[in-house]
């Protein structure tokens, strides 16, 4: 059977499964809609969190990025896993004990202020919309590559599916769909990785394989270092980035992960405080399956690619080369007209442009794996994009219906009306996300800098200080969040998006302390903490009832399931 038919079958089956689950897990109350009724087991929640977390970028782009960045790719690997330690140790158990539906609810209650709540809602909406637009785009891209439909048609199909189970099922539907999506995506990622590891190193475990030797008895990493250097790139296992920048990017991604509302909200769905800790552990273990495999895939694919194309004649290129040339993701330009592919570091001589995404998408074809494996990658990419999109849409709808309408504008709304508002907000969110997917605004490409930087500079410090520093008051927290946000936004607008100032003057040489926009969230976080501490020491301590609330959330006993009041 052709790749095309296999893709239709596998994608169709997986979609039927998601819809089936959505119908089975309809939400009947706001509690089910916002936190799945608070009765999800830690293992299931771990899987759902993993699927929620691993986006189209993790599945499709990350291994490719690492394969071109070499050692520097570690910023993503450590950055997007290390945050779970912070979540499990510093955030999840206490927020679970606190027992509300959302992050803005915590900020609003802990800092006894609707201003703080509104700042938090705006941050949550902004972060989530930036992130979700990228996911919808990802759905469109996968559809267009594998099923040869228009990208926009792909976005519409994605919207329809997410619409169905997010609007109908809320958190309950999303959670159980995500469990299924985790299984699909991890299977789709691992099967090709294992096949290729066996082919190249004889070891079925990719994590060990890439430290092993190839048939000629040379360590694979040494071989790749050699290939890289021969072509003028730096050695694969050393990086090119400045150490302080690597430090800052890693820290910003870790802290940002722990501050992302769609990740935090998952820990409100388990029954107990100890389940919140445990489920963060499971989540990381499930995520690690992909995250420890990706660097191996990166090494296999890069070695394979260089050996197949470098200094070979263009006419002898295999079929996959031609297939991917058609998509524009692979471009060959014969600069010296010798008919031979020169892939080198020197930009003026390099003749081959390779898009990051090819590494995962074309890997099975490069390694000549059977057609069903190629099709599986499409189903996996879609599972990754859809699961993340759904989680984000839920945060958006909850922020609107619960934190804005119920808590501020229409406090008398009944549970039934609130559920309806939540569904309507989810519907609007799907439509807006789809619109952004079709007409991506310029800032979507900077999603990493924006979403993580802003989460790191705003939510994370406010929550941590709310739990661990009883004396922190509303003046301090609001001043901290606002200053962290503004300075980070300013930096990204100036040095990443070039909306402020003259682009020519804002290259890497003028970065503050040599920190790239992706790593600036770390600086923003420090600014937030410093401002918060100074302002709070100059103003009144928080009222007694807030201080007792903080003492209360530090002790596990007495946690009911997440509740609404």
């Amino acid at each position, binding site marked *: 059977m052709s790749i095309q038919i296999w893709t239709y079958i596998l994608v169709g089956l997986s979609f039927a499964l998601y819809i089936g689950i959505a119908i089975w897990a309809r939400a009947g109350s706001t509690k089910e809609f916002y936190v799945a009724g608070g009765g999800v087991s830690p293992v299931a929640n771990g899987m759902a969190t993993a699927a929620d977390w691993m986006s189209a970028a993790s599945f499709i782009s990350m291994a490719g990025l690492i394969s071109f960045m070499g*050692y520097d790719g570690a910023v993503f*690997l450590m950055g997007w896993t290390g945050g779970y330690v912070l979540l499990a140790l510093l955030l999840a158990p206490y927020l679970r004990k606190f027992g509300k539906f959302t992050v803005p609810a915590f900020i609003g209650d802990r800092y006894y202020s609707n201003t703080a709540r509104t700042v938090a809602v705006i941050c949550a909406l902004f972060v989530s919309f930036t992130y979700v637009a990228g996911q919808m785009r990802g759905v469109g891209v996968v559809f267009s590559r594998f099923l040869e439909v228009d990208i926009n048609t792909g976005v519409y199909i994605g919207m329809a599916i997410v619409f169905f189970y997010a609007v109908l099922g809320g958190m309950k539907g999303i959670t159980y769909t995500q469990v299924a999506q985790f299984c699909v995506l991890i299977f789709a990622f691992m099967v090709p990785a294992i096949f290729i590891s066996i082919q190249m190193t004889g070891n079925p475990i990719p994590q060990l394989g890439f430290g092993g030797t190839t048939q000629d008895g040379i360590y694979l990493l040494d071989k790749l270092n050699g290939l890289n250097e021969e072509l003028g790139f730096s050695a694969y296992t050393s990086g090119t980035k400045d150490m302080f920048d690597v430090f800052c990017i890693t820290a910003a991604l*870790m802290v940002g992960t722990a501050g992302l509302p769609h990740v935090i909200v998952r820990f409100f769905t388990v029954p107990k405080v100890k389940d919140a800790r445990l489920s963060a552990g499971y989540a990381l273990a499930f995520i*690690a399956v992909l995250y420890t495999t990706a660097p191996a895939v990166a090494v296999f694919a890069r070695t394979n690619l260089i050996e197949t194309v470098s200094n070979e004649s263009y006419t002898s290129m295999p079929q996959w080369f031609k297939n991917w040339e058609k998509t524009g993701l692979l471009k060959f330009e014969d600069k010296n007209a010798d008919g031979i592919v020169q892939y080198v570091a020197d930009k003026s001589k390099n003749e081959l442009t390779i898009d990051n995404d090819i590494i995962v998408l074309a890997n099975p074809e490069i390694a000549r794996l059977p057609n069903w494996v190629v099709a599986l990658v499409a189903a996996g990419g879609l599972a990754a994009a859809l699961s993340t999109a759904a989680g984000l849409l839920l945060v958006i709808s909850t922020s609107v219906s619960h934190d804005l309408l119920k808590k501020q504008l229409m406090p008398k709304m009944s549970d039934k009306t609130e559920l309806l508002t939540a569904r309507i907000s989810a519907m609007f969110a799907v439509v807006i996300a789809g619109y952004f997917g079709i007409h991506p605004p310029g800032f979507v490409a900077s999603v990493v800098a924006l979403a993580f930087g802003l989460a790191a500079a705003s939510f994370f410090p406010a929550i941590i200080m709310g739990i661990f520093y009883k004396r922190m008051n509303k003046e301090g927290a609001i001043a901290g969040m606002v200053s962290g946000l503004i300075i980070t936004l300013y930096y990204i607008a100036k040095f990443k998006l070039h909306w402020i100032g003259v682009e020519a003057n804002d290259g890497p040489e003028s970065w503050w302390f040599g920190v790239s926009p992706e790593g600036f969230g770390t600086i923003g976080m420090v600014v937030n903490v410093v401002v918060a501490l100074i302002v709070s020491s100059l103003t009144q301590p928080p009222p007694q009832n807030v201080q007792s609330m903080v003492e209360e959330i530090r*002790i596990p006993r007495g946690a009911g399931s997440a509740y609404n009041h």
Partner: protein
Amino acid sequence: MAAKDVKLYWKTNLRYLLILLSIWFAVSFGAGILFKEQMDLIKIAGFPLGFWFAQQGSIYFFIAIIFIYVRLMNKLDEEFDVNEH
């Protein structure tokens, strides 16, 4: 629970956090970034050690840290009788 106990419970928790977060920092920022070059001089199989910590080892340690914390806290909660029923 008496106020003194609450204090002791919280202090013990903070001590666990300090120790575990130091390990968290050491395996990622330490071995994988700040001392990467020195670590790379040691090789295990095909892996320069600093590179291994940055792309593999830190993640395994992260998982271990969380599960150790879960165990420590479950025991502590029981000891101070603040666990959930």
